[in-house]
Structures are given as structure tokens and as C-alpha cells.
């Protein structure tokens, strides 16, 4: 049997998280072993969507995200979203309430766009980018602090000026809306939907559209 949702035993952290999030496997349609020959993905797009959101969330929470993994998951999410957008009348299968209350639309950190989070990544990484920036004409470049001993780890150089203001200064212009955004501002006022419905995996396509709009940054933030 293929190891559904089972991580390599060495990666205990991932395994712990996954087992607590296994609820989404309940709605999986026939197991792969019952498929003879090639066939389409057994999970309905909405489940794949949820799975991808989970992977994205998990990937972004890691210390240093695996950029390839992140990009591939985001691109897959976009594919699923455009496929779901093409079939607005496709009925969403009813899903049982999750045993563990892990919301489909993940907790607040993901309500900001993925792009904003990728931006954070590049902002912090951009600070160490000063090493590699150089004018195109120069055949060879020097880092900004030529007097540095190459053996010294992570030369700060101009970054020390930033740190003079303390670490707080570094994060001044980072998007903090993850801490104070309303999860579903439009949905709450629209038809008075209950929180249960929002947390359940059976979301309307319009809600999913909204979420995907946010994620792919088509909304002005």
C-alpha cells in the first residue's frame, strides 16, 4: 500500500504535524490500489486544493523554505484554482466535520497573500543580497567590504548601520497584517454565514475565488 500521508520516520516533526492533520484524508475517494491502469487524480480538486494550502502553510512555516517546493506547490495551487474557476457548477462533495479543528482556510497567517510572504522572504534575504549586487560592466565584483577576511562568517558591513537601531528597525516595514486581518470580512456580512460553515471544507466557489484572488495577489493590498 502506498504510504498515504506517512512521512519518512526520520522527519519526526513533519510526521507529528501530518498525523494531526490527517482529517482531510477522510474525504479521499478510492485508494490508488483500486485503480487499475492510468487514471485521473483520485482526490477531487477541492481536496487537492486544501492539501496544497496545507503544504504551502507548512512549507512557509519552516525555518528556511525550500524555494523549489514552494514554487511547485504554488503553481499547482494556481492550476487547481483555474480548473475550479472553469467549473463553477461542479458540486462540492459534502465533507465531515474534521476531528481536529484545523480550518480549511488555514489560520490567519495565510490570509495575507502568498506573495506578501514571499516578499518578506526576499526583504530579509535582500539584506544579504548586497554581497552579490554589482554593476554589470565590471568583469569581477567585490563585496562592499573589501577589507574583510573571507573566513569571517556573514560580514554585516552596511547591515550594521541598520542594526544600530536595534532589531526592531529591521521589521518596521514588514507587512504585519497577518496579525490583525479579518479572516472573511466580506463573507461575514454577506449572508450571515456561520463560522462553522467557514471552517468547514465545503466552501462556496465564490469564497474559494476570493481566497485565490488574495493568494495570487490580484487584489491590491
Amino acid at each position, binding site marked *: 500500500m*502506498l504510504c498515504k500521508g506517512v512521512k519518512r520516520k526520520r522527519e519526526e516533526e513533519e510526521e507529528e504535524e501530518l498525523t494531526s492533520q490527517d482529517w482531510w484524508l477522510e474525504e479521499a475517494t478510492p485508494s490508488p490500489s483500486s485503480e487499475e491502469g492510468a487514471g*485521473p487524480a483520485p482526490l477531487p480538486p477541492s481536496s487537492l486544493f486544501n492539501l496544497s494550502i496545507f503544504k504551502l502553510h507548512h512549507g512557509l512555516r519552516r525555518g528556511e523554505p525550500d524555494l523549489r*517546493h514552494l514554487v511547485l506547490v504554488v503553481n499547482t495551487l494556481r492550476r487547481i484554482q483555474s480548473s475550479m474557476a472553469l467549473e463553477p457548477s461542479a458540486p462540492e462533495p459534502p465533507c465531515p466535520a474534521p476531528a481536529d479543528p484545523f480550518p480549511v482556510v488555514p489560520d490567519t497567517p495565510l490570509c495575507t497573500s502568498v506573495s506578501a510572504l514571499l516578499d518578506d522572504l526576499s526583504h530579509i534575504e535582500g539584506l*544579504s543580497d548586497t554581497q*552579490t549586487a554589482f554593476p554589470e560592466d565590471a568583469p569581477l565584483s*567585490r563585496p562592499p567590504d573589501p577589507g574583510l577576511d573571507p*573566513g569571517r562568517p*556573514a560580514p554585516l558591513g552596511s547591515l550594521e548601520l541598520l542594526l544600530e537601531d536595534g532589531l526592531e528597525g529591521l521589521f518596521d516595514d514588514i507587512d504585519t497584517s497577518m496579525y490583525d486581518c479579518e479572516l472573511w470580512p466580506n463573507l461575514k456580512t454577506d449572508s450571515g454565514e456561520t463560522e462553522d460553515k467557514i471552517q468547514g471544507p465545503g466552501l462556496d466557489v465564490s469564497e474559494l475565488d476570493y481566497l485565490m484572488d488574495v493568494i495570487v495577489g490580484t487584489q491590491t493590498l
Partner: protein
Amino acid sequence: MAGAGGGNDIQWCFSQVKGAVDDDVAEADIISTVEFNHSGELLATGDKGGRVVIFQQEQENKTQTHSRGEYNVYSTFQSHEPEFDYLKSLEIEEKINKIRWLPQKNAAQFLLSTNDKTIKLWKISERDKRPEGYNLKEEDGRYRDPTTVTTLRVPVFRPMDLMVEASPRRIFANAHTYHINSISINSDYETYLSADDLRINLWHLEITDRSFNIVDIKPANMEELTEVITAAEFHPNSCNTFVYSSSKGTIRLCDMRASALCDRHSKLFEEPEDPSNRSFFSEIISSISDVKFSHSGRYMMTRDYLSVKIWDLNMENRPVETYQVHEYLRSKLCSLYENDCIFDKFECCWNGSDSVVMTGSYNNFFRMFDRNTKRDITLEASRENNKPRTVLKPRKVCASGKRKKDEISVDSLDFNKKILHTAWHPKENIIAVATTNNLYIFQDKVN
């Protein structure tokens, strides 16, 4: 290949296995890279714990005509240590991502090893004699009182037990913001490239405090990021040419003479998507995990999740040969996405004459494809077959329908046992295959 066929078929035999026997794998012992040197006499492995182990082939024994020399441990050293990036508050893994050997110029051997952020040039040298008979020093190193010296003698070299020393000669640091996935030494043997997810840098082996950025695909706005660099390699003969592959299944060939920043490719290799096989996972499975030039330099091979493709450098619109590694997984992509196996990065390699290519799969299986006979074979790296000169039995996976005797069904495959790293001796039919924490060496049967 072993099996029905003519006299040219190779019969692969178990030769050696290195590494711990028990099933409980220590994280640090996970092998992360395998590479023969240019003569094939040395075989290097890197692991997740940042260590490099070099094996040396024994000189061929004239009396032992039925097997080639065995590989024994030659040198072990700690190449990289875990580091802490204080700015980002992140630990930098010590795992060795790649090892590349320099061609031998003198008695010492040199190799480049890299983790996610730092590349190091190591010198491995032998010491088998030491000077004895100093005038001012005793044998134990204590200084003699000069007034007690009545005669002078010339120190002489006397043999000692062989000592192999590894010393870091250069450290190339602070040039990569993202994770280094490839290093490749240029055919000029003076420069090399290092590639991370978004950039490729060119270095001179003598100069550590600067590098030249030759490819940069980072978008001005990270929101627009949709593609990353997955592998890069210099052409084996043409010192101005290199290729890099992407997560979207494309390969770009660049000529460094064209411009300083090679953001515009000279050639773009891409096969159009097969509409009948389109799925949500099409892009993930098209992501190229490895690219290798043939020794001749005329072809290059790419590995994506399900196949190995051979490209003629003169034809950009499709590969000249495609080999399915484990097509039976195509119907299982959803499950493989769930358990993240779909993101596994398999490597591939050529044999010395470019006639056979090899790559790994799951269940500790590995596959070889003979480009001339078009025959392929699946073999298993397992301690069950570990009698020397035992010919390996071909394995077969049953995708569907009635399972024949000795076949394994897809659902019985162990997806935790993956062979990601393989290497082929540059001149002989000797292969090194890495399972999670063991290194297997197989040879062809010598009659």
C-alpha cells in the same frame, strides 16, 4: 544487460556494501552525494552530517583475475559544520549537496564539496615518509641544547605508515542567498560554477573573495516567481558553454561569450506537453532534478520525475531518446503528492562510453538503459544479494493485472527506500549506488 541476449550483455554482480547494517538510520549517515574521480581510482561520498568519505580502489592483484580491486576507506573528514545565520535566525545545514573532483595535476588530489551556502576546495595528500635526524630537535620534538651538538648530519626521509591528510585550501562563502544545488568545474580547470535556486555564479579556483554572477532569474517582484533553477553543468569540452535546468522542465544552454550576464539563453530545450497526460501534477513531474552532459559533449541527459531524456544539443524542440523509469507511478501521482515523494530529486549518470545511462527509483531499485540495444534492466541494491560475484537478478514491477512470480506489485513498493544518487566508473563497468545510508558497489562479471 543481464537476461536473454547476446554476448555483449553485462551481468552485474554484487561487489561490496559500505555503511551500517541496522535498519535504524542515523540522520547524519544519510548519503547525499556520490562521485568517482577522473581515473575512477577514488570514490567519494558526502552525507547529511557534513562528512566526506573517500574510498580507494586496491591495485589489481595479478592472482585475482576474477574481480577488480576492492574499494577501501582512504580518507574521512568533516567537510562542513552546521552554521547559524544570525541575520535570518536560521541554521545552515551541513549536508553535503555535491562533490566534484578536479583532475589530478600532481601527487595530491583536489575536490570541491558544497553545502547549501559554502563551497570548499579540499586537498587530499598522502604522507608515507617523514624526515628523521634533525640536528637541533630530538625525535620527540624537544629542542636540543645547541652546545651539545658536536657533529652535523643531514636529515633523511624514512618510511612511515601511510597517512592521508585532507586540508581545506579555499573556502568560497557568502555568495549565495538561496540553496546551492550544483557545482561544476569548467574544462579550463581554472574556473567553476555554483548554482542556487535563482542564481549562478562563476568562480576562479584561486580567488575566494569574489565571484561573478552569470545567471540571475530572480524577479524584481517575488510575487512573480514561478520558476527556479534546479541544476547546472559546464560543457565537458567547450569552456564557454554551460546549461541549467528549471523546475518547469526547460534546459537553457548559455554561451558566456555572448554577454556578461547570461540571462538570455543561446538555446532553449523544451518538449511540448503531451495533452493526453496532462494533470494538476504535470509541472511537478516535469521539473528536472538532474542534468548531465555525455562525455563526448554531444548529448545531455535530463532526469524528471518519471523519465530520463537524452537531448542532442543541436535539437531544441524535443529529446532524441526518452526512457521511462517507473511509468507505473503515473496513476499514483496524487498519493505521491500527498506524501511528498513527488518532490524527490533523482540523479542520473552516463557510463564511460556514453552507451548506457543509469538512474535510481524506489524500493532500492535502480534502472539502466542501453541506448544501442534499447534494452533496459531493473536491479535492486539489497543486502540479501550480498555474496561477492553473485549475479544480480533482474527485478520487475507489476503495474496492474495478475502478478507473475518474482514480480512486485506497485502497492508493495517501499517509497522510503529511494535511490537518489548513483555513479558510474569513468572507464570500467563498476557502479556505485547509494541507498539511504549504505553504498553498494557492483561490477560486471569478469570471466
